[in-house]
């Protein structure tokens, strides 16, 4: 029982990280109708920027304080994401307004390749580590309930906490600020929003920037867990089945979908894996999404898909 709970817990933590990436997808899809394949590349790029600047900045200006260096690196990485958001809007989205979803998807594929290449050209392609002072040692909880207790990583708990804070901040931003209201209006209907004077282009920059920030947070958490390396993009691809499961337009859907995928993946790997050869983590999420698509194409919380001629 304790082992099962540990597995579930590990799955929840992995799922939390998928959710973070999926959040970025959902934000951009809601506000601009773009299925942003580049979210994974953005995670890698942001994490690379963070990792490298937290090394470079202390060397350049000679500060010894790790917290200060990390904070500065975070700001610089965020600025990079802002520049990225601006350039994407200026050079890509603006020219592809009113195109079909599939065209936009392929454009973001192009952005993915570009960003992967750019990140590794500027920041190098070795494995880097991000050290934001996350505690590594595991702790035991519930040792009164189970014999020996449950093994839990403190790091995972902090990551979950950060993710929860991020989701709360985002929902506050969307519900309470005027920019958030404008973003929701844009998401609802581009033309109507534009006709009452909401500047579409600026809204897109903002939403890509917010998605870039979530990518940065996801990148930091992942980077400090498994190191910043190219394989982050493959892991980030897992966010695609997550949003299919949760629904393309739903923020809670991204969270719950991520948790379901994370737990399902770990549990099936542990209990089903030995029967059919192991490694089913690689495809479980996608096949689950595939099955889901057949029965509920709009996902758990998505809006019903209506086709009109």
């Amino acid at each position, binding site marked *: 029982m304790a082992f099962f709970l540990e597995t579930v817990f590990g799955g929840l933590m992995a799922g939390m990280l998928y959710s973070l990436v999926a959040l970025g997808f959902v934000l951009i899809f809601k506000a601009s109708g773009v299925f942003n394949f580049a979210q994974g590349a953005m995670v890698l790029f942001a994490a690379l920027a963070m990792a490298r600047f937290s090394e470079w900045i202390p060397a350049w200006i000679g500060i010894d304080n790790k917290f200060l260096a990390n904070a500065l690196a975070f700001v610089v990485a965020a600025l990079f994401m802002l520049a990225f958001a601006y350039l994407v809007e200026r050079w*890509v989205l603006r020219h592809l307004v009113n195109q079909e979803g599939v065209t936009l998807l*392929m*454009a973001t594929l192009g952005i993915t390749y570009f960003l992967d290449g750019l990140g590794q050209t500027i920041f190098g392609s070795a494995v880097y580590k991000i050290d934001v002072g996350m505690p590594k040692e595991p702790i035991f909880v519930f040792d009164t309930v189970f014999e020996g207790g449950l093994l839990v990583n403190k790091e995972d708990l902090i990551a979950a906490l950060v993710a929860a804070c991020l989701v709360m901040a985002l929902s506050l931003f969307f519900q309470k600020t005027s920019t958030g209201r404008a973003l929701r209006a844009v998401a609802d209907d581009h033309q109507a929003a534009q006709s009452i004077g909401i500047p579409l282009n600026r809204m897109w920059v903002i939403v890509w920037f917010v998605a870039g920030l979530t990518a940065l947070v996801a990148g930091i958490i992942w980077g400090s867990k498994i190191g910043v390396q190219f394989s982050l993009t493959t892991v980030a691809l897992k966010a695609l089945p997550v949003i299919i499961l949760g629904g393309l337009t739903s923020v809670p859907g991204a969270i719950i979908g991520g948790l379901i995928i994370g737990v399902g993946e770990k549990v099936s790997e542990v209990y089903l894996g030995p029967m059919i050869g192991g490694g089913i983590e690689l495809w479980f999420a996608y096949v689950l999404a595939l099955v889901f698509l057949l029965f509920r194409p709009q996902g758990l919380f998505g809006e019903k898909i209506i086709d009109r001629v």
Partner: protein
Amino acid sequence: MFYRENGQFKTSYLADQQIFPIAQDRWAIGLLLAAAFVGVPLLADEYLFRAILIPFVILSMAALGVNILVGYCGQISLGSGAFMAVGAYMAYNTFVRIEGMPMLVALLSGGFCAMLVGIFFGIPSLRVKGLYLAVATLAAQFFCDWAFARIGWFTNDSSSGSVAVSGLSLLGWKIDEPSEKYLFCLGLTVITALLAKNLVRSAIGREWMAIRDMDVAAAVIGIRPMYAKLSAFAVSSFIVGVAGALWGFIHLGSWEPAAFSIDRSFQLLFIVIIGGLGSIMGAFFGAAFIVVLPIVLNQLLPALGDLVGLTVSTAMISHAEFMIFGALIVWFLIAEPHGLAKLWSVGKQKLRLWPFPH
């Protein structure tokens, strides 16, 4: 001046409907085929065959298949690499497990198995489309990656998942010289291109295009979406599967599942976008571009680096390749959504009027 159809009168429906209605086009394509079948094998050296010509011919064939699905039927697929893998591994199994199996039959059986897998993973296309379908086909990609690496039967229980074939021959013709391999692949690709061209200008091709342009409207005027979509998946994955089998048998000789990873799927999609969505000619343009560009960059970038006193490492070249591909994809989608094939036809239009444009 030379390229105009003055005086070429069509007197029958057949003459009007032929693939190349203009006599100059027929001459040009005849010359091109003659050059490809006779001239190139006489002139090219081994490096040219191995590094450029054989990959180009096989990727063109795969791109033909992907173009039928993505360009003509509008069902975006990120699982083409998986269908290539199915083709390669099933052709291998047929070839190795059955004594005296002719190679051509093995290749076709690989295509047939890829077709079955393609139809299976195409079933979600009946419920979802566009973005959702892209994720569904990703499932095919990752599942096949895993299956060929982990399930021993597919690889004849070789420990690392890598397999090799040898002793290729066609009706007693031993295919072992690079030029022979090239000719064999070229023959199959030309036949496939002809079949594909005729398919897309027949009734079923028009059904695919109707589904692509607006599937609800197509269903309303009596086109069966299930039949149209699944037939596109079937034809596409058959061609892609045969191309995958060729890639394994002829180009690589021995291969492992990583040869058909998700990068291959993206590469095929890029070939189709750059070459031209919904164009048979485009598959060839796109494949040529994708095969030649990395080689050119490999030569060009170090030379450029030398000019400004920089040493360009191989890692940097591969990153630059990523960036250039990415930028090109975006540029093509913005500036010329119909790709190189469209540029080609614009050029031909201009040529008809040249040198007196009015």
